[in-house]
């Protein structure tokens, strides 16, 4: 598909087999194929049912607390001295991040499919908490797979999941992070496929996950679009979001894809710097390949082995990315860049001090881009940053870096 068709609203991705251009698709062992087919058919049925969306909207309003505000960060704007910066406050959602939008939607699917057991993978623990939360609310058994490395750096979220009644399963294979947690969740699903619903937390995985997670998360962009017009009388100029798997970014971007005047920037985890190889920036440095059920940009070596990644934030520490981002990159509809761990920490401290909002380390990547770029832009330029999550969970990590013990 040509770029002009994207810009003229004929985007229509994915196709019926889950392909976003050459990306996406279904790459799993045969045991899971029928389960994905069942999920695809059920979602197609519910997607066309207004009652399903009414229930979703009701839960988002009364349980999650939506709509989340679009907040004009006046002091940050003045301090940076350039573009006007607005924050889409997903950190104010119940459980503290955008992740819950998706788990609410997928919990409704699980319920409609009669599944009694929920599994999930998690990196920073936000998706694990959001999954444990909806499982508690529906009285479902919940198992969350989490790398032992992440269990160490996100201990507060581990405890929250346990409080919510979830069984947190430590994964000690490979790099002991998000990628390995996803491997283990896929193995669990293949074993317990009859009674189990797998809530994938990001816009990756086999079709239909990248599509349905996007559909649930795009409430962020729909609200932001209306709120921006209401507050400023027009559309924004630039959207910014951090990208690990890419669910908060797609959630913000998707409703704006046909608006050709709106630029979209995804910020990947630059870790110690792209030149060091110690990062998690597949869109900036990787090549297309196949991992976790879909074709997308990946970090792999010359033999196709997946590389270990590094990021200060567990939620971005992943060698792949949602296939729709790969397609948006190739179409030049969105641009992808990265910031380092150090720039991220600086942004974390600055937003906390200037606006009294403590952002998650994941989210701080997007703020770091704004700190670099907003000063270069004119004062009538409007930036919306997806403030995807709050930083309470990161107190231990940041304190440790600053040499303090809590």
């Amino acid at each position, binding site marked *: 598909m040509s770029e002009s068709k994207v810009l003229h609203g004929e985007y229509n991705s994915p196709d019926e*087999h889950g392909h976003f251009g050459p990306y996406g698709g*279904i*790459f799993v062992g045969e*045991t899971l194929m*029928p389960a994905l087919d069942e999920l695809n058919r059920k979602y197609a049925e519910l997607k066309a049912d207004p009652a399903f969306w009414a229930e979703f909207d009701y839960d988002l309003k009364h349980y999650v607390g939506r709509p989340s505000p679009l907040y004009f960060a006046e002091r940050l704007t003045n301090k940076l001295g350039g573009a006007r910066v607005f924050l889409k406050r997903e950190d104010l959602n119940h459980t503290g991040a955008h992740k819950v939008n998706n788990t609410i939607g997928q919990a409704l699917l699980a319920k409609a499919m009669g599944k009694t057991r929920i599994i999930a993978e998690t990196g920073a623990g936000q998706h694990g908490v959001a999954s444990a939360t909806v499982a508690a609310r529906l009285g479902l058994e919940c198992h969350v797979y989490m790398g032992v490395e992440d269990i160490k750096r996100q201990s507060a979220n581990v405890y929250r999941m346990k409080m919510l009644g979830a069984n947190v399963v430590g994964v000690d294979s490979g790099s002991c992070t998000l990628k390995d947690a996803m491997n283990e969740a896929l193995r669990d699903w293949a074993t317990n496929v009859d009674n189990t619903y797998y809530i994938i937390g990001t816009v990756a995985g086999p079709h239909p996950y990248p599509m349905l997670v996007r559909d649930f998360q795009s409430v962020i962009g729909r609200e932001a679009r209306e709120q921006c017009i209401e507050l400023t009388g027009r559309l924004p100029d630039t959207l910014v979001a951090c990208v690990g798997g890419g669910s908060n970014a797609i959630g913000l971007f998707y409703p704006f894809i046909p608006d050709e005047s709106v630029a979209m920037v995804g910020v990947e985890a630059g870790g110690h710097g792209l030149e060091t190889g110690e990062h998690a920036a597949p869109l900036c440095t990787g090549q297309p390949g*196949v*991992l976790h059920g879909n074709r997308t940009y990946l970090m792999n070596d010359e033999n*196709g*082995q997946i590389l270990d990644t590094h990021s200060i934030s567990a939620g971005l520490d992943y060698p792949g990315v949602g296939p729709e981002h790969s397609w948006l990159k190739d179409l030049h509809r969105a641009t992808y860049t990265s910031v380092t761990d150090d720039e991220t920490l600086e942004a974390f401290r600055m937003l906390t001090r200037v606006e009294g909002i403590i952002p998650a380390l994941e989210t701080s990547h997007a703020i770091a881009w704004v700190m670099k770029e907003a000063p270069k832009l004119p004062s009538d330029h409007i930036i919306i940053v997806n403030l995807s999550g709050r930083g309470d969970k990161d107190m231990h990590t940041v304190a440790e870096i600053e040499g303090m013990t809590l």
Partner: protein
Amino acid sequence: MSRIAGCFEQLKAQGRKALIPYLTAGDPNLETTLSLMHALVANGADIIELGFPFTDPTSDGPVIQRAVERALATNTSLKGVLETVSRFREEDDTTPVVLMGYLNPVECMGYQKFTDAAVASGVDGVLIVDMPPEESHDLEEIIHRTALDGIFLVAPTTSDARVSYICKQSSGYVYYVSLKGVTGAGNLDIESVKENLARVRANTDLPVGVGFGIKDATSARLISEIADAVVVGSALINKIEELDASKHYSREELQRHIALIKEMREAMDA
């Protein structure tokens, strides 16, 4: 006729069933893998499934995951695995070899280059675990221009309509995965395997192999009574795991070490 078809034809004439061991190439290193391949044949293997390692083997249980980690620890690459098949062919021109693994190393090498190298090294079949027939068109198109067989999996969860579709895409043999779950898990339910084999046979004249959950001579014999081929993976890898990576083993030593395969052969032929 491909080596695989020839092998099954010969076995059929003898009234015997195929024994197909799976091993991860490079576990604990490629030298030992080469010797193990010959030792397997000497112990009665008919076809060898040779796994090429991938960092994220999502369809495999802990036993094969550890084998993959050992193989990657000695930097085993797809290229190195193909070279090992070439070296195997220097002495054995009859035993079919099926390459089995995950798609990303193949994508990374490129479909055409992979297929050319597989043919040149003497590979007979290709089974990509995470590439269902729906996504296989580009690779299969290239493979079908050669004598290579494209082998696909059927699972207990596969619907009748999909069984028919998968059988149409398959050549060489059809691999029936006898358990829900990952490799090395659980126990066999022979009755369920029987019912599912009937579903596969209703759709194809190809031989049908059964894998997952076959642990010993007894289970190998039970499966050989109802299937055309018995695939054994994790039980063999458990034996390979006991080998010392720094040691050189003679073929005779390895043959004795993996006597399990000989026991299975004898039980199947009895």
